[in-house]
């Protein structure tokens, strides 16, 4: 039975989630040097084009067609059978295609998150092939396991409300893999790159925060109390994490920065994503306050210590924040918030924490392995990294023959 309020909310949420990808483009684009800003915007925008098409042709079928196998299979190729009647196993009150297009936006933004790790040094052609293969062989199967009918992690009882595992841990760990195998950017030691446009970072964060209401509250797939809960805890966690990152900087470095508040807010949004439909507002504050501690340590202590060049901290924010969110869901989840969910450790069910932990480990193992294989294949046939001269001149000029800013007029 189609409910017009639910349908309207899911359509609006789909548009909100779409806006997160350009938001991410500005968030990342502000952080790179100005010779590379267009390359980052381009990578984000072309993902919107390529993966939107992949999704309607076969991505949605591989992810969501009912199956107990590795993939969802090919039953819904080209949206065959995906019409305007509800598909009750996923969402009983909205047209099936509304669910499909909502999920499309998740499939778009997930590979875009990885851009942060290989920014400023990846060949555009290699990036395109890598992204298409990664979406097909990493995102689509994992999406099926966690969310699809018959998916084995779903059947095991894993809780992932809006994509902490499928989106953030998944993209974040793939980011670490690509950062390590691609190697550090040239001249990094002598020429520490400063973000070229901090207002872009702020603008991008604002768009992400705004779009995230669709990401999390939209994942209720209905305009109901659960959506409101997700909306409230999402906002609260982002606020707590932004504040907490600024306080950490103030104590440790002497001054709080806008870059810190933005990093914190995004980390908070990441961490609350798996938990948004299962926890109440006080746990949301705790999740937000603590995620900044973990991510701050990851990007300012662990990264320099190990020496990998995760250019824009896709791993440090999305994977680390995502793991904390997945585990926190196993701690704070409560059936009082969502009777269809489960209780966490603090509500008398320690088993849930182990299920969450197992899901995190499965995701990391699978994604690391397949990402590595895809990377090596692309490197073999195309070559992933640009030559050093192109890297020095910047990807905008050498990959796209454009530049973002003129010097004279």
């Amino acid at each position, binding site marked *: 039975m189609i409910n017009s309020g639910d349908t309207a909310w899911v359509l609006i949420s789909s548009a909100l989630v779409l806006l997160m990808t350009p938001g991410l483009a500005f968030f990342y684009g502000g952080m790179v040097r100005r*010779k590379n800003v267009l390359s980052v915007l381009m990578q984000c925008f072309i993902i919107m084009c390529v993966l939107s098409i992949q999704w309607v042709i076969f991505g949605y079928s591989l992810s969501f067609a009912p199956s107990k196998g590795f993939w969802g299979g090919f039953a819904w190729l080209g949206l065959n059978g995906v019409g305007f009647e509800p598909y009750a196993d996923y969402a009983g009150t909205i047209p099936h295609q509304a669910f499909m297009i909502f999920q499309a936006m998740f499939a778009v933004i997930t590979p875009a998150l990885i851009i942060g790790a290989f920014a400023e040094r990846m060949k555009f052609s290699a990036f395109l092939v890598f992204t298409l293969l990664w979406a097909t062989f990493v995102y689509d199967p994992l999406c099926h396991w966690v969310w699809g009918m018959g998916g084995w992690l779903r059947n095991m009882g894993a809780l992932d409300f809006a994509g902490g595992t499928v989106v953030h841990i998944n993209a974040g760990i793939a980011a670490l893999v690509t950062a390590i195998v691609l190697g550090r950017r040239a*001249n990094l030691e*002598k*020429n*520490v790159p400063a973000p070229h446009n901090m207002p872009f970072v702020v603008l991008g964060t604002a768009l992400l925060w705004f779009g995230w209401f669709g990401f999390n509250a939209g994942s209720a797939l209905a305009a109901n109390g659960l959506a409101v809960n997700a909306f409230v805890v999402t906002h609260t966690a982002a606020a707590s994490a932004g504040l907490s990152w600024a306080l950490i900087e103030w104590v440790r470095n002497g001054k709080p920065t806008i870059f810190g508040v933005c990093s914190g807010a995004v980390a908070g949004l990441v961490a609350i994503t798996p938990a948004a439909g299962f926890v109440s507002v006080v746990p949301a504050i705790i999740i937000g306050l603590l995620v900044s501690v973990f991510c701050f340590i990851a990007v300012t202590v662990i990264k320099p210590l190990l020496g990998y060049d995760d250019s824009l901290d896709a791993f440090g924010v999305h994977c680390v924040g995502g793991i904390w969110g997945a585990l926190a869901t196993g701690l704070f989840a409560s059936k009082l918030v969502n009777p269809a969910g489960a209780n966490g450790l603090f509500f008398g069910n320690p088993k849930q924490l182990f299920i969450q932990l197992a899901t995190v480990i499965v995701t990391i193992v699978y994604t690391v392995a397949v990402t590595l294989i895809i990377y090596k294949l692309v490197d073999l046939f195309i070559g992933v990294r640009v030559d050093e*001269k192109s890297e*020095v*001149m910047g990807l905008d*000029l*050498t990959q796209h*023959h*454009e*530049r973002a800013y003129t*010097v*004279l007029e």
Partner: protein
Amino acid sequence: MKLVIAIIQPFKLEEVKEELYNSEINLITVTEVLGHGRQKGITEVYRGAKETGNLLRKVRLEIAVNDNYLEPTIRAIIKGAKTGETGDGKIFVLDLAECVRIRTQERGSIAIG
């Protein structure tokens, strides 16, 4: 007194600054400029419209030195800026007629350091 003007690759600025600092040359002025020599400009395309021979971004350093500091300055710039590729830049040396420190109105060699 000499005025040293150097045109270098933008990404080499930090290394040149470090080398100058190691040679105790601390007073430099930096501007961003456009230009090209043998390393030809790159073609840009905007909605199909080609713009060829576009100028490349470079960094221009100006350093006023006393004569005994001239060679160390040149050596430091070369050490910091050289990659061996075309486009590494040039160093120009000019005679400097006068130098005045505005705060004290000191003139000549004493005003440079």
